[in-house]
């Protein structure tokens, strides 16, 4: 029996409020399924499970605030094999591992004792992912278990076979009989609804009694959203078509709502969360700053050409090119992509590019484009739109808030020439992109007028030196001079 616990959705999070369960006892879940909605100081976040199996008990009622790490539900693992962790003992050399910080590969491949896991970050990740650290083989210095090891172990273990579990679970049969997702039963007098559903309904001006939902259970936020989308009708459908390729649109984009948990109290909480994190950053991180002027002539010409035959919804914006260029540079200069922990810097094998997104109600969130270096620029553009849209509506997923490895802020959009940002701990670098503006610029001894932008880097001097930072900015520049390769 494993526990699904209140995850840490950011370095600044100490507690969270369970807003809504999206599963019930008896439901079969797979790794990555969204099972609950949790309210943090910043927004309502959809939280995934990293366990696969059958939900056996919900331990916390919606509306309850608990500290990070508190068990929220118990989950019966999918099958015995999976429960007993790595069935195949060789934590196979990861398929596409980019530079891993493994100066001295662990001498003996026995599982590292838990005591060897000194980094609280790694321990916390282990808890979050439901990985038994004693079973994980460390590849870090001295056999230390790194974040990557934990992530890999989580990917290898329980997940696999949700398909087999239903048959084995006695609890499953009766529960699934009443699942009929959206039976259209109008609610009776005393309307039962989750707190989050009530809040959403209030925001949308919907009468809960008129929201269709399945019989025998409270109205959920899903029901309210469905009803709202139905009501939003025309606009919803316009935006639905307008939006990106289907697989990126989780739902037919309803009207943008800022942070769901709006109101003065919420914005005060967000302010306090930002204050705490940024103060910690400036207190702990010795920042160094570099900047570089990038000629955007080729990039803008390439974009103009690429967009000529695209419908508006498929057009690319310069920010997508800059994001892709930055993600690629991060794979080439891995010293800036990862986390700083008790044991020093840990590079990440994947680039999860955090995007600083300002919210209309004030404040900001920095959800990440996961594995940003691996997708083409069209897909990245679609993901960017989806991410920003969901950030503003307060429908981000847990992983997007916890797994950023490098952040980019695009304040140039608001007209500033350059921005020197504050690093988001435990990351070690932040890239700032200024406005693209026409300026006099000398090329081959001739003065011309060119679109230029200033790309800056704020980096953690504990993790890297300015030479490394300079190399990183040079790589971004290089990629922006070859937009066709992005």
């Amino acid at each position, binding site marked *: 029996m494993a526990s699904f616990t209140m995850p840490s959705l950011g370095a600044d999070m100490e507690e969270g409020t369970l807003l809504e369960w999206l599963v019930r006892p008896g439901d079969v879940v797979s790794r990555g399924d969204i099972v609950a909605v949790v309210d943090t100081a910043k927004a309502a976040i959809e939280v995934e499970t990293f366990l696969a199996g059958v939900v056996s008990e919900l331990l916390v009622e919606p509306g309850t605030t608990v500290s990070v790490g508190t068990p929220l539900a118990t989950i019966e693992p999918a099958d015995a094999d999976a429960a007993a962790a790595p069935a195949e003992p060789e934590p196979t050399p990861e398929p596409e591992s980019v530079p891993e910080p493994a100066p001295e590969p662990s001498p003996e491949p026995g599982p590292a004792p838990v005591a060897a896991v000194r980094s609280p970050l790694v321990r916390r990740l282990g808890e979050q992912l439901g990985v038994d650290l004693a079973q994980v083989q460390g590849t870090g210095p001295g056999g230390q278990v790194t974040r990557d090891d934990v992530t890999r172990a989580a990917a290898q273990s329980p997940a696999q076979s949700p398909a087999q579990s239903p048959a084995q679970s006695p609890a499953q049969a009766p529960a699934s009989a009443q699942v009929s997702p959206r039976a259209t039963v109008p609610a009776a007098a005393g309307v039962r609804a989750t707190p989050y559903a009530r809040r959403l309904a209030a925001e949308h001006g919907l009468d809960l009694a008129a929201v269709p939902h399945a019989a025998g259970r409270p109205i959920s936020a899903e029901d309210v959203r469905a009803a709202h989308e139905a009501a939003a009708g025309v*606009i919803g459908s*316009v*935006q639905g*078509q*307008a939006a990106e390729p289907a697989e990126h649109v989780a739902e037919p984009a309803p*009207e*943008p*709502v*800022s942070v769901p948990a709006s109101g003065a109290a919420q914005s005060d909480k967000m302010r306090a969360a930002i204050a705490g994190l940024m103060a910690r950053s400036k207190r702990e991180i010795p920042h160094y700053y570099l900047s570089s002027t990038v000629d955007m002539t080729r990039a803008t010409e390439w974009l*103009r050409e690429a*967009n*000529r035959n695209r419908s*508006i*919804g498929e*057009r690319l*914006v*310069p*920010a997508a090119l800059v994001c892709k260029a930055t993600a690629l540079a991060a794979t080439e200069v891995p010293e800036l992509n990862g986390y700083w922990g008790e044991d020093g810097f840990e590079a990440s094998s994947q680039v999860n590019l955090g995007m600083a997104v*300002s919210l*209309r109600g004030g404040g900001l969130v920095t959800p990440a484009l996961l594995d940003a270096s691996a997708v083409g620029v069209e897909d990245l553009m679609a993901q*960017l*739109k989806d991410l*920003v849209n969901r950030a503003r509506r307060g429908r981000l997923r847990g992983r997007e808030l916890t797994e950023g490895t490098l952040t980019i802020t*695009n304040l140039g*959009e*608001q*007209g500033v020439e350059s921005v020197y940002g504050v690093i988001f701990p435990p990351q070690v670098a932040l890239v700032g992109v200024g406005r693209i503006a026409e300026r006099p610029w000398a090329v081959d001894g001739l003065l011309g007028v060119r679109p230029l932008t200033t790309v800056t880097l704020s980096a953690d001097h504990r993790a890297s030196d300015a030479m490394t930072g300079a190399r990183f900015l040079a790589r971004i520049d290089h990629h922006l001079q070859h937009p066709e390769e992005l």
Partner: protein
Amino acid sequence: MSTQSMDQSQARGLVIEAVRFIVPDADFDALGDDTPLRSEFELDSLDNLSFMETLSKRSGVAITEDDYDRLVTMRSCIDFLTAK
């Protein structure tokens, strides 16, 4: 593109609708017709793209990237939409 050209107030309504799709509580009462919408409502490039998209879909008027520069203020948007 459109079968019949749009009048001024229809165009104004569309612009307001397209902005409010992005900024639901956008206040137009105090906004002059010559104020740039993008800076007034803090639209970033993704918002701007969404604005153009909504405007184009709702009006049936094709908008190319070159047209973006002519869709800056309420007045210029109305002029653009009613001229088509």
